[in-house]
């Protein structure tokens, strides 16, 4: 919310110095009405999800009302029991483990690679950097099957390694690029000063550069968490024991279910699966929005 207040504050001062803009008020009202109307449509599916998760089975279908006739909290207790005899807590733990591992891996490996690309000189830096950028556009499917074969040979299918290990090897080039862009904006004098003080590249990375790169690292961490949490495809191909399932995969078992009686519990579980993202969003929206806005589009 800091951004909102910042912009408002700026706008207020400009309004004070430029009263000429006041006659435009009706246009502004129209803008707000339009934005609010759009927002209502946008948020309807989320409201519907929340409402449906609390509805009794017979009200789910053929009812436009968002407010349930009676609150059916048992949907949530059914959801907590989980799927295939695996409790929601276990599924939640699995999801957290994978997302947490991915966050640590990406922040570590991507910042190391980014520092080399942004600040150090080495042979083939240009071509390697170009290759790194190109892998951002590379469809995951082009490497998917051999990766699966490799992890299969290593006996790692149906474990979490295929989901976490690649993150420790900086395979998400998007984040390397994001951190490179950020590091390039830091003044070089800092490292020169550190070098005069006797810091080698490692100490100046850990003591000088890394702390200053914190905003980019936080953006990387949050996006990695949310994208890993939402990821479905990789989990679908690598995990098949129900007790190793994540929340996303457990929801999958509802995909085939055609009976509408499971609607309430299914959407209760959907809410539980969305909750961490919503919390992350509310807590870190400034980083998220700015991280997205700054993702390499500055000319």
């Amino acid at each position, binding site marked *: 919310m800091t951004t909102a207040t910042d912009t408002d504050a700026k706008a207020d001062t400009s309004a004070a110095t430029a009263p000429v803009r006041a006659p435009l008020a009706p246009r502004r009202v129209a803008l707000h009405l339009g934005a609010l109307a759009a927002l209502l449509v*946008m948020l309807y599916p989320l409201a519907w999800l929340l409402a449906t998760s609390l509805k009794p089975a017979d009200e789910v279908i053929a009812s436009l009302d968002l407010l349930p006739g009676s609150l059916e909290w048992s949907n949530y207790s059914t959801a907590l029991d989980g799927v295939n005899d695996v409790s929601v807590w276990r599924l939640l733990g699995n999801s957290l483990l994978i997302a947490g591992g991915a966050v640590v891996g990406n922040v570590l490996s991507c910042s190391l690679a980014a520092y080399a690309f942004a600040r150090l*000189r080495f042979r083939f830096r240009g071509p390697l950097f170009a290759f790194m950028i190109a892998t951002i556009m590379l469809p995951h499917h082009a490497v998917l099957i*051999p990766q699966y074969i490799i992890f299969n040979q290593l006996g790692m299918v149906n474990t979490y390694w295929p989901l976490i290990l690649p993150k420790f090897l*900086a395979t998400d080039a998007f984040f390397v690029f994001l951190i490179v862009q950020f590091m390039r904006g830091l003044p070089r004098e800092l490292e020169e000063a550190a070098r005069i003080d006797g810091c080698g590249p490692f100490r100046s990375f850990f003591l000088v550069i890394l702390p200053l790169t914190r905003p980019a690292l936080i953006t990387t961490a949050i996006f990695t968490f949310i994208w890993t949490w939402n990821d*479905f495809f990789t989990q679908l191909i690598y995990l098949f024991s129900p007790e190793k399932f994540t929340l996303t995969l457990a929801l999958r078992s509802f*995909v085939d279910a055609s009976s509408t009686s499971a*609607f309430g519990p299914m959407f209760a579980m959907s809410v539980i699966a969305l909750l961490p*993202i919503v919390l992350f969003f509310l807590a870190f929206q400034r980083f998220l*929005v700015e991280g997205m*806005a700054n993702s390499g589009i500055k000319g």
Partner: protein
Amino acid sequence: MTTTTTEQTATASAARTAPAKRPGGRRREGAAWVFLSPWVLGAAVLTLLPMAVSLYLSFTDYDLFNPPRWVGLRNYTQMFTEDPRYWRSVGATLTYVVIAVPLQLALALVVALGLKSMRRGRGFYRSAFYAPSLLGASMSIALVWRALFNDGGTVDNLFGTGGWVNRPGWALLAVALLTVWQFGAPMVIFLAGLQQIPTELYEAASVDGASRWRQFLSITVPMLSPVIFFNLVLQTIQAFQVFTPAFAVSGGKGGPADSTLFYTLYLYDRGFVASHMGYASAMAWVLLIVIGAVTAVLFRTSRTWVFYASEGDR
């Protein structure tokens, strides 16, 4: 004074052309490779090697259990000439890309323009419109979408359209609308781009009597064109690879009548359900080439319409 400056420039340029001669240059080169080592390992073992292997596998028959059997171009000829489902998946994907990406970007731009001229609440709206971009990729929302567009779902009740997800053609549109709903990410990027256009340009145009529409066409679009291009490339590449919503809407089958059998869904079906890894590899390589070609075409045409204000100092 003049001599010293020249000397300084000379040493500076010498240092620039021969960085290895600097004291400690060797050590720094070594350090660079240490920093780079996880990435190098990942690029070699999880990117380059798999690309080569998947190219090789695309010429084989391989089921994960028996050794790959070389079949030459068989997978490709089968794909292009004997597999109607393959072409249906191509058709579904292209239709989806052509519907979803322009709609999503147009909406993103319109909303960004609206928010740009707002004084109050811009930050709030920006965050609120962005939220679906994060939530929408989840299985939870894909399931909501299926219910909303199903028989008796909200859309059916409001417009009497029947269950979109059960009707060929309409199911695809439902998935496309889910993508359009996530216009927040490109919108945020548009908004950042709009805020970098100098206001003097608009002021000068107003003085010259240019209409708002004229200002949009002659100032906003050219000044924003690098950002439009960036969003177009990014969203197109992503759209080609969409998977989760199609899987959820169609119960993993790509139905009705293969209308949501997106390319990646069919690739998953061939590789991981039917165990035709060679065939799936061939599909992956065609996808790689198509995405590469589309990106190349976008880059090539961009020369005619993307305008870089700061071309000089690039």
